[in-house]
């Protein structure tokens, strides 16, 4: 066991997999000698060699095309997209290729790639360093989408993603790299070291894809969240004193529907939280599924607390960010009789 922040835990996951499986390669813009703009790949090139961890041209489409080709050969490529906001040039290789290869070839070829990309706001990154585009990928059949909320899960989920034979989009909430941010930007930054999930085994382990975690048990309402919003939700629950159950989805697709349904059937109330823009966000799908599965148990309308349907505005980051105050209000609304 070691104490790791999320960037270190991700580094450790890649280090572990590089050592364990010679078919794992890691590449992306600035990930080689330098170790990545968020330092997640620090030291890996030096340790494992430049043919296993290397820089790529600044061409996200080219990076993922390379990954698909390598995957078809039989390797397990792990590609970094420097910011989730820069994944769009690679959209065709993801949607038309990685996601479809196994299907269209009748199972002959597949693309077991992992795409890591920092997502989310809270670092004054402005509209092109703050996006959370996860919903787009959940609409593309054939892709798995994962978003961890803490160092332990981050390492375990990333190892599962690398070992998975399907393409996995792995979003890393960049505001969580260094600490469990709960949305109280005005308060001093908390380091991961004080959080139990920073206890991370140094070697191999995994956290399975497709399994949510009940982070806080409760009976009054259910909060569905992932990534940074898990911590925001916990803060809101604390502050309202409402005995809500907080579920960290961890994997958006395939979704752990059972855990969700069980909880909402118990509480009868549901708040969905994400940082992404609201319209057609993943919260819409969650809302649809909850009402499909729990219709007769629902005692209040399902609330969505999300980023606004605007780009992420630099100077108004904290007006945009769906912080604990907004989550708390939604919790209070669903509790209204």
């Amino acid at each position, binding site marked *: 066991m070691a104490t790791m922040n999320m960037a270190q835990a991700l580094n450790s996951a890649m280090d572990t997999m590089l050592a364990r499986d010679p078919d794992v390669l890691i590449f992306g813009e600035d990930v080689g000698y330098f170790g990545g703009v968020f330092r997640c790949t620090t030291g890996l090139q030096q340790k494992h060699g430049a043919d296993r961890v290397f820089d790529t041209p600044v061409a996200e489409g*080219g990076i993922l095309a*390379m990954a*698909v080709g390598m995957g078809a*050969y039989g390797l397990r490529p792990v590609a970094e997209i420097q910011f989730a906001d820069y994944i769009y040039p690679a959209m065709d290789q993801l949607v038309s290729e990685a996601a479809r290869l196994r299907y*269209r070839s*009748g199972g*002959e070829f597949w693309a077991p790639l992992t795409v890591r990309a920092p997502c989310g706001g809270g670092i004054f990154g402005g509209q092109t360093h703050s996006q959370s585009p996860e919903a787009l990928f959940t609409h593309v059949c054939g892709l798995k989408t994962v978003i961890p909320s803490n160092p332990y899960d981050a390492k375990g989920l990333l190892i599962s993603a690398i070992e998975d034979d399907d393409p996995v989009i792995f979003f890393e909430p960049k505001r969580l790299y260094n600490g469990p941010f709960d949305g109280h930007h005005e308060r001093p930054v908390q380091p991961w070291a004080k959080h139990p999930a920073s206890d991370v085994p140094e070697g191999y382990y995994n956290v399975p894809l497709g399994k949510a975690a009940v982070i806080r048990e409760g009976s009054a309402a259910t909060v569905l969240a992932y990534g940074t919003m898990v911590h925001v939700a916990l803060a809101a629950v604390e502050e309202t004193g409402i005995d809500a159950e907080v579920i960290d989805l961890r994997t958006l697709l395939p979704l752990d529907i059972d855990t969700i349904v069980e909880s909402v059937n118990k509480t009868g109330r549901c708040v969905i939280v994400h940082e992404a823009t609201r319209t057609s966000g993943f919260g819409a799908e969650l809302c649809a599924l909850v009402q499909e599965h729990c219709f007769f148990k629902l005692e209040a309308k399902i609330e969505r607390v999300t980023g606004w349907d605007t780009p992420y505005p630099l100077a108004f980051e904290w007006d945009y960010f769906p912080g604990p105050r907004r989550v708390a209000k939604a919790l209070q609304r669903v509790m209204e009789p």
Partner: protein
Amino acid sequence: MNAGTKEPLLQPTLRFHVPEPKARPGHAPDFSNLVLPVAGAAPRPPVNASAYDTRDLAGDLIRVLNDDGEAVGPWRPDIAVDVLLRGLRHMMLTRVFDERMLLSQRQGKTSFYMQCTGEEAVAVGQASALDSADMLFPTYRQQGLLIARDWSIVDMMCQVFSNSHDRMKGRQLPVMYSSRDANFFSLSGNLGTQFSQAVGWAMASAYKRDRRIAVTWIGDGATAEGDFHYAMTSAAVYQAPVVLNVVNNQWAISSYQGIAGGEEATFATRGVGYGIPALRVDGNDFLAVHAVTRWAAERARANLGPTLIELVTYRAAPHSTSDDPSKYRPADESSCWPLGDPIERLKKHLMHIGAWTEGEHTALREEVAEQVRTAAKEAESYGTLGQGPKHDPATMFEDVFREMPWHLRQQLEELGT
């Protein structure tokens, strides 16, 4: 108006240019833009040539067969007669296969088909210069690769018919083959994507200290896609063992190659721009195609890096069964194509060297026709899109993921009810 301040100046007003082919329906075909050097004239640099060394070749046209069917010049390959005879057979088989599938489409046995008529020397000639273990990342117009690798044409037909024996389980558009056993990568409907993937595969092969190179194809039209650029950049940067082929068949559906920028510089010249050695070849000249491909494959195998090859040919058939080229090009343009028919040209060469006769040719034609007839009969017995056995619709939910997640299992159940 949504534009900045406007200060009139003294220069002429600006114009832009929309390229137009020299002939449209109703005009006489006009290929005067295509410069045809005599066969044998192009020099053959050593395989360790630099991109700079090839910059003239990239604008030129490498030709081996002259008008008499004689193989001439430094690119004349050292090639066994039986390789040529196999090539002839495979080109003829490809053409007859196409004709039969076209007929099947007209008969409603499939919904769609794409021929490669007139371009057979590209796939068949290139395959003849590669190892069977080399990995191919083709477009939909290189069915000749499978045929040249002696892949089962029954299997191909089953794919075209989406029948019970279709290994793609009825999912894919006809002609979107995949054959792992033939080292033929699953075809995509999205243009260009395979070009950049091939570089990744080649890098993987190199990483594993393997000996297999990757070979990929793209159409003149699709060179405009980002994937062309990704492939060229990454192949150059990582010096990947890959052969990159542009099949310039003059047309991209209704757009002639000028719309892809083919009039400003040859497609081969693009390669030089990235520092990739590049050759431009008469794509209807089986011997020239074989020779340049062998040169490029040798380079790749010797860790000398990628090569770009432009194969100049002509799409004699419609783009697909959904297309009617008489709407956008002269009806007789195909018959005026200056580089002729690859099958006729190889036949002439073989007769010129005394290895082939008209009689043998007629017999071979009958033989491949019979082979196709028999195969079609068998394939049809497994069903066609129009009728007969198919896969179970429930298979539709398989292979989206390696294991079926709950939501697909639930949808599969919904389908059942």
